């Protein structure tokens, strides 16, 4: 219990608290309600994935958390402070790679340092390291147009990681990768997250959007399943698989069961196997 209390004290750092968040886009053809009544709290150092059908508001939710779009109702608190403008110290991986096409891969990765007014030269080494980590070391001098979609995504991942932010908001960062590279990147991401680290305090907080259920199960502490139009929380799963997770994790029966349960909730399929995951309704 004391451990728990300690964690709550740290909760004020990179935790995310969403309280009955609603978000409606005003468009030329009328309002589009993208999110309704989203209540969710992400603890510091927690890895939470969002899954849900296309258009259910996952990207919108990330934008609201990042302070890039204002919510229309409810409140978001990050790092103990209400979000009213773009929040600091966040690494954002956009759904599209959003690379600057006039810059080389290396200079794209270094952009955060330049924009934040830090000396880019001091981050070169780290940038090269990140490129190596993502298998792009030979492409540092190339322009984005010379890269495949999956490679561009990895560049944008490196860019998000450059300043080592304590909070990562990632929108389908591995969507354009082949299955094998994707599995590899999953493991790398867990390393970057700090899976092997001593405790949650040393881990980053990650909010991760994906369309792949196995990917969500493999990576996450918790999985938030969303339902569309307007985007709401359909259910939250605790993934109690042991860490560190390895290639073998994917082959376990529990892994399969989690995947199946989430699949059932997403599709509304009636499962004939008893659900083992600790599923609970949105708090």
């Amino acid at each position, binding site marked *: 219990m004391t451990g728990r209390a300690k964690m709550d004290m740290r909760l004020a750092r990179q935790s995310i608290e969403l309280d009955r968040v609603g978000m409606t886009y005003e468009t030329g053809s009328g309002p589009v309600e993208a999110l309704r009544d989203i209540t969710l709290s992400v603890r510091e150092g927690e890895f939470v994935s969002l899954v849900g059908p296309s258009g259910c508001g996952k990207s919108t939710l990330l934008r609201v958390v990042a302070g890039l779009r204002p919510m229309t109702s409810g409140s978001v608190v990050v790092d103990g402070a209400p979000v009213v403008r773009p929040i600091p110290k966040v690494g954002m991986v956009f759904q599209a790679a959003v690379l*600057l096409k*006039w810059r080389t891969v290396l200079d794209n990765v270094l952009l955060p340092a330049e*924009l934040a007014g830090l000396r880019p030269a001091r981050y070169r080494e780290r940038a090269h390291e990140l490129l190596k980590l993502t298998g792009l070391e030979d492409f540092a001098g190339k322009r984005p147009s010379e890269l495949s979609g999956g490679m561009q995504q990895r560049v944008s991942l490196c860019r998000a990681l450059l300043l080592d932010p304590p909070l990562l908001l990632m929108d389908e960062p591995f969507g354009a990768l082949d299955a094998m590279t994707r599995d590899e990147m999953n493991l790398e991401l867990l390393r970057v997250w700090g899976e092997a680290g001593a405790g949650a305090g040393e881990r980053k907080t990650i909010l991760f959007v994906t369309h792949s259920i196995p990917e969500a199960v493999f990576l996450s502490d918790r999985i938030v399943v969303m339902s569309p139009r307007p985007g709401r929380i359909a259910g939250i799963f605790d993934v109690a698989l042991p860490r560190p997770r390895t290639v073998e994790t994917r082959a376990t029966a529990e892994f399969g069961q989690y995947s199946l349960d989430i699949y059932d909730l997403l599709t509304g399929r009636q499962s004939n196997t008893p659900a083992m995951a600790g599923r609970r309704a949105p708090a």
Partner: protein
Amino acid sequence: MKKLGRKFLETLPAILLFAGLIVVWELATTVFGVREYLLPGPATVLEAMFSGEINWAGHIWVTGLAIFGAFIIAAVSGVLLGTLIAWSSVLGRALMPFLVFVNTLPKVAVAPLFLLWLGYGIVPNMMIGALIGFFPVVINTAVGLSQIDDDMVDLGRVFNAPKWKVFAKIRIPNAYPYILSALKVTATAAVVGAIVGEFVASQNGLGYVIITSQSSMNTPLAFGALIWISILGLVLFGAVAVLSRVLAPWAEGREQ
């Protein structure tokens, strides 16, 4: 080497057409005996272009300077105004109607006024060229700076980058292709403006050569001046093309 060979093959049709036209031109004047004051043959024109009859170098210098000056003034003021418009919506709303009004003026008709205000010489000619050429730069700069993915804007906001930095690092490079394509138009407009100025009043320059040789029926000289003008125009246009290769290779880069 291979690349050069391919470039040559690619331009061959244009070269052939050009050579063919010159041959037809020459034949038209010699075989059908078109009189020289109506249409001098290419050989005559070439001779006139280098004849010591007039001080070509001097005229080319004066006109070249007017064209170049017009281009630089148009480019710099255009980019500045365009940036101001994109920077502040208040400034944009204040400036745009005025600029649109200026653009609807028949600028060539303003030439005599410029001469009245600025006196004779190279400066009014520059200003006329600049006046004709700067509007596309303003518009394209403003549009290029604003035509940007929401995501790219968000990228700047995620890092809490100050506005000027977002302009310097994201918006302005993003606008290069727009600005450079406007500068190609401006290169041509600068030539028109400079020549119009010289038509209206001047003692120097290639436009002046055309006017005086017309009144003395020395058509080969007028043709010679015309070709010198287009060479100046081509040089400027080529310089802009090279500049856009250097500054915005990603926009040209579709070649490969």
